[in-house]
């Protein structure tokens, strides 16, 4: 049985910076997360309009990662619903960039992007070469992922976001292990996604200037 402490969050409608006509929005209603008997958060309501960037912050254990995993269906909510305004299934339209990057050590960055391109339903995925240049991995394109540094791995994982375009990006502490250029890469990618009318939910401890919306979860 779940402990029924009532954590309450003000309902919010986050406006998008871009024109929201014909853009799909993300709707979260009465969402609750529980771990064992502990309620992590409850009564979470918000709507993120197309082209919007939502910065989620909060102390360790506040439920940032859980929220992101719930949105893409990797974690079941204790209560509540998450949906897109056009009622299409969420999971296949999500990119989840988590703590574990999902990269395969025996592939090269070029192969990683190559396969990610082929996992896309988009008719026009970005060219692998352009993405490697964007991620600053052109010199390392043909060496195995296992030989990359933590920051380079992070960049490669981020480059995958564009290799298979999807509507909703869920980025869990994307700035971790990145240098200044890497952080600029995150900002560039997020800005591109927002300008294209996509949605970004970004969990980070540090301020995110390009986010037009902010949600703070209580520990």
């Amino acid at each position, binding site marked *: 049985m779940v402990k029924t402490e009532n954590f309450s969050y003000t309902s919010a409608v986050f406006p998008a910076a871009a024109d929201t006509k014909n853009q799909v929005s993300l709707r979260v209603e009465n969402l609750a997360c529980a771990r064992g008997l502990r309620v992590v958060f409850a009564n979470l309501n918000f709507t993120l309009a197309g082209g919007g960037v939502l910065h989620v912050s909060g102390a360790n254990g506040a439920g940032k990662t859980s929220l992101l995993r719930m949105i893409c269906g990797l974690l079941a909510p204790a209560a509540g619903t998450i949906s897109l305004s056009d009622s299409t299934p969420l999971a296949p339209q999500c990119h*989840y960039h988590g703590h*574990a990057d999902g990269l395969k050590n025996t592939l090269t960055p070029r192969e990683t992007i190559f396969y990610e391109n082929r996992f896309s339903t988009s008719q026009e995925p970005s060219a692998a070469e352009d993405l490697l240049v964007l991620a600053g991995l052109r010199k390392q394109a043909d060496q195995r992922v296992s030989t990359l540094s933590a920051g380079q791995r992070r960049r490669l994982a981020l480059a995958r976001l564009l290799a298979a375009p999807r509507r909703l990006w869920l980025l869990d502490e994307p700035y971790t292990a990145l240098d200044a250029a890497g952080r600029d890469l995150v900002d560039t990618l997020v800005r591109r996604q927002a300008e294209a009318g996509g949605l970004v939910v970004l969990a980070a401890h540090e301020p995110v200037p390009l986010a037009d919306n902010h949600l703070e979860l209580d520990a």
Partner: protein
Amino acid sequence: MSGRHILQALFARELRLVLRGGHLMPVLAFVFICVMLMPFGLGPELSLLQRLAPGLLWVIVLMAVLLSLDRMFQADFEDGGLDQLMLLPVALEGAVMAKLAAHFVGILMPVLATMPLAGLLLNIRPDTVLPMLATLLAGAPALVMLGAIGAALAVGVRRAGLLTVLIVTPLYVPVIVFGAGALARSLAAPGALDVAAIAVLGLISAASIFLAPPAIAAALRAGLR
């Protein structure tokens, strides 16, 4: 890209990972060591070796499958690959099938290719090699699919190898009974094929190909949540 193209790409990637990951050599080494040591353990009597060969070959293939499946989903679980697999724009059941097909082609086919040599080392007659291969081929898909159910159920559990073995061993009993039985009858009547037993094995394999992917997908979803 359509769902079919995505699954083809996933199969190609998984096959590349299997071939590059160095998973095949330990399995082949295991098969080789088993086959080489059996005659020393059983003694120099060739007729005894020949009589035991069907059961030994099936058990060796079964153990090789279990050895190869040990980290099949565990590695994906640990490196975040399972999250990415779940978010592909195809059904998880299809993605699982693509992974298992790559595993079958990349690991089990080479193991099966060594079986004629293994059989000859266990003193089976050369004219029974083809019936032996037919029997193993008919039952091998069932070994992989049933083993994958155990591997998926144990995902997220540390040192899950033993747990996987405990889960799948009862499921393997019918396959071993029919497989070793068919092989024994083929060896008793050289050149003959026990069609009925092979058909039963094929049926078990076909059933497992249809029924295992939803079970594996459900186990993986439960393991992640």
